[in-house]
């Protein structure tokens, strides 16, 4: 089996201008959305409380919103999470309210009315649970909790359940946002330094611009569609940055090699032939990595959804930008044979041999 039967060098650079205009437009769109609409940052960055509540049957989201609005001041969000039965509630940070207490109050309010699909015993259990949580601390002994826990076990899978609660203080949030920005900066500088050592400066500039273009596009997509931008998504974006730099490195390696071997070809011909020679590998390896990220996206559950989405988008943009943005930019920057083939001494000696 062989997918790529490439008869002749594909003139990638002939379309460079068209693609670069498209890139510039999408890039500016992404920047515009980031500037105007901003990112839908997760509570890890903003501080606040998130609750995930699992219902037996799809609940009335509007009713939940109303219940929460009565309990919590400020702008809370209620969305489904993965399935229609799973509800995700985001609440802003409330200075003065002890951590977690807000979640307890909201959960008690949500379970005060029996939800559809719940077993009849659930109402009593929820009420007992809510009462227990309001007891003074001395009375909340393991002995007092034991019957509740036993009942919870016997009712498992029949009642509305609190799957997850996360509370992040505003101070932690701003720190995480700062650390995230710092990580992004450090990765970009580290890669730029590596490329500057490894390649000539026109290439490193082209590669860095191309890959920042990927990052901006991925993050821009999160702004455009208002997808939640969380810490794992940030990690995915940075991993993608490194990953697509690889791609540019491999293409530039070939460009350098072909400048040496194809002595009569023009710069455009050399770039085209280098991309053609690597395109089979590019598509197969990216196909393999995409297989992984797409299975993660499809089967990894809601917790991994945006993480896998960021990786998938990043890889797609990465392939595109390595071919059309990085290589084209290098071409616009006027890369020449002399920039790359600085002919080491032995090689010069062989050239001079008759």
């Amino acid at each position, binding site marked *: *089996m*062989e997918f790529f*039967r*490439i008869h002749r*060098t594909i003139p990638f650079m002939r379309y460079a201008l068209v693609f670069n205009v498209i890139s510039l437009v999408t890039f500016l769109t992404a920047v515009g959305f980031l500037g105007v609409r901003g990112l839908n940052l997760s509570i890890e960055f903003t501080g606040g409380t998130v609750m995930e509540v*699992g219902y037996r049957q799809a609940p009335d989201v509007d009713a939940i919103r109303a219940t929460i609005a009565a309990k919590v001041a400020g702008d809370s969000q209620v969305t489904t999470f993965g399935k229609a039965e799973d509800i995700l509630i985001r609440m802003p940070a409330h200075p003065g309210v*002890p951590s*977690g207490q807000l979640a307890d109050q909201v959960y008690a309010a949500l379970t005060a009315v029996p939800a559809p699909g719940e077993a009849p015993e659930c109402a009593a259990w929820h009420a007992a649970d809510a009462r227990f949580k309001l007891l003074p*601390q*001395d009375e909340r002994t*393991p*002995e007092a*909790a034991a019957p509740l826990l036993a009942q919870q076990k016997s009712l*498992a899978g029949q009642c509305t*359940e*609190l*799957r*997850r*609660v996360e509370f*992040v*203080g505003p*101070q932690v949030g701003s720190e*995480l946002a700062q*650390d*995230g920005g*710092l990580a992004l900066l*450090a*990765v970009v500088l*580290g*890669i730029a330094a*590596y490329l500057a050592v*490894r390649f000539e400066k026109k290439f490193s500039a082209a590669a860095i611009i191309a890959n920042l273009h990927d990052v901006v596009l991925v993050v821009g997509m999160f702004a455009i569609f208002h997808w939640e931008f969380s810490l*794992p998504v940030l*990690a995915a974006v*940075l*991993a993608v940055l*490194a*990953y697509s*730099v*690889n791609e540019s*490195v*491999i293409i530039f390696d070939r460009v350098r090699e072909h400048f040496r*071997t*194809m002595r009569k070809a023009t710069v455009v011909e050399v770039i085209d*032939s280098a991309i053609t*020679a690597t395109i*089979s*590998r590019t598509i*197969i390896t990216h196909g393999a*990595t995409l*297989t*992984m990220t797409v299975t*993660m996206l*499809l*089967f*990894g*559950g809601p*917790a*991994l959804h945006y*993480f896998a989405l960021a990786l998938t988008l990043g890889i797609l943009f990465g392939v595109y930008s390595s071919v059309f943005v990085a290589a084209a930019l290098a071409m616009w920057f006027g890369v020449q044979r002399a920039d790359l083939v600085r002919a080491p001494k032995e090689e010069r000696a062989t050239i001079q041999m008759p």
Partner: protein
Amino acid sequence: MNRYPPWKYVLIVVALVFGILYAVPNVFGESPAVQVASVKATVRADAALLARVEKSLQAGGIAQQGISLDTIGQNPTIRVRFADAAAQARAGELLGRELNPDASDPSYIVAPNLLSRTPAWLQGIHALPMYLGLDLRGGVHFLMQVDLDEALTKRLQAAESDLRTQLRDKDVRHAGIRRGAGGLEIRFRDLESRNKAKDLILDSFHDLVVQESGSADEPILTAALSDAGRIAVRDNALKQNITTLHNRINELGVSEPVIQQQGDDRIVVELPGVQDTARAKNIIGRTATLEARLVDVSPDGMAATGGAVPPPFGSERFTVGRGVPVVLKKDVIFSGQQLQGAQATFDDKQQSAVSVELNDAAGRVMLQVTRENLKKPMAVVLFERGRGEVLTVATIQGEFGSRFQITGMPSPQAANDLALLLRAGALAAPMQIIEERLIGPSLGAANIEAGVRATEMGFAAIVVFMALYYAVFGVVSALALGMNLLLLVAILSLLQATLTLPGIAAIAFTLGMAIDANVLINERIREELRKGTAPQQAIQQGYERAFATILDSNVTTLIAGVFLFMLGSGPVRGFAFVHVLGILTSIFSAVFVSRGLVNLIYGSRRRLQKVSIGQIWRPATAGTPPVPPAGGARGKPSGA
């Protein structure tokens, strides 16, 4: 030409054996167990308790599958495993009844737990399953901010009162001590007093540094904590808070609590399996008090010790702890707030002892009390939730003030324990919860299932594709990828790294990237064959040329991974760690191991005509081929 020297094969086999041994504990699963640990500060689970547990189970007719005493960590724990959940429940109930005759005041916590089924010989070589993060097993997570400034203020307060006493004792006159942001500001009326005070501070306050200012008429001395002193105060405060948290959390009966320092001034607490955050928070945030009191040695008091008659007015009887029962007076000599330090040490006879330091006010009371009660016993009691527990009863051997020793400790361990308990009475610095997470057990199970399933499916898809596209070489690549997964899991297990959901995602992503190396190699070999190179030579050239590119392409990934690990936190760190580790193992497996396999298959054949690397198509028509052909065609491309 494509042969490995024997040592390389030995290395591969060693890596394979290592991988299997350390990865395999992850597949044994867990068996239900019951764990028993002490909730009392003065009681420890030991061999005697182990025998008692064993006997009770035997008497109750419950078959157990292994019992062990784990003395590693803060609180020794006995763990008993059972065949099924029913036996576990029965045993839990039985042991709870037997070990805690007084249900209102339990000495031991008996909690259900899950233990790895890994055979003992594997556990002996530290082959244990990976530790699952909270997002995979459920539980609560707290991040607490420790107010270290408060600890520094406390230390300065103590220094201030000490300084006042010492200046008075040495008859150094001053015109007032004021505590400010910079430290203690001491005013004097003449230079001579200031010099005397300066000598005194430098002599007896090792963590203070002094600075002179003011005029000759109004000399001022500023004493501040030295950098080393500051660091020591902060370190001690954090350590003491962690110790206190450990003691309190033991009471929750959590199987594997994580209590760790994070950054300079934060403590992470993770309690797997705990669902009641409110209760966990209460226990963590509870305040305990420590009191030193005299033993009531009056005839009435002595008579009441046995419990037959009520204790006299102004005394109460304690039955829990060391040296009990004992009747103590209600008057408090000093309390935990006045205790400044307690350290295990040795007395002048080289016996284990605990040296205690009190603040100045308590020291003065102590001096008076010891003068009046020479050769009489006194006790230290820890109060938590309104219940007192006697930590020690000791006889007053002489007159002393703020510094004294509790001698007669049976062992350095006992001295250490007591010092810890004395210190652990209260938190050294106030703490505030700044992050809190609760993950339900069902969500954890769903997360791990989804993560593992996605990885499996992706892995299978890649294996099938590689085998179809690159034939034998594809199978070799797939085997190398499998080896990579094995080694990655083995190393993570060996390091006892915490596996989280982003960690699983990183494994999947890294596998997807690791196959890149094999694709590079296989494409290069095909390219060589296309040029007409002989198969043996093509294999060699392919591996050699691809290697430089593989190293190169991993460098950027490593750069990103390392920065992410350094700057990231929580999920980002877990992702970065697995990612970097996976890149490193992939270089070994994709290059070294796959070459070994290829050599084994093809390397020894002298007249190799063709290799099975899938169909190689050559551009037959004219035009510019991607790579300029070189030399004649000797090797035949294969169609297999």
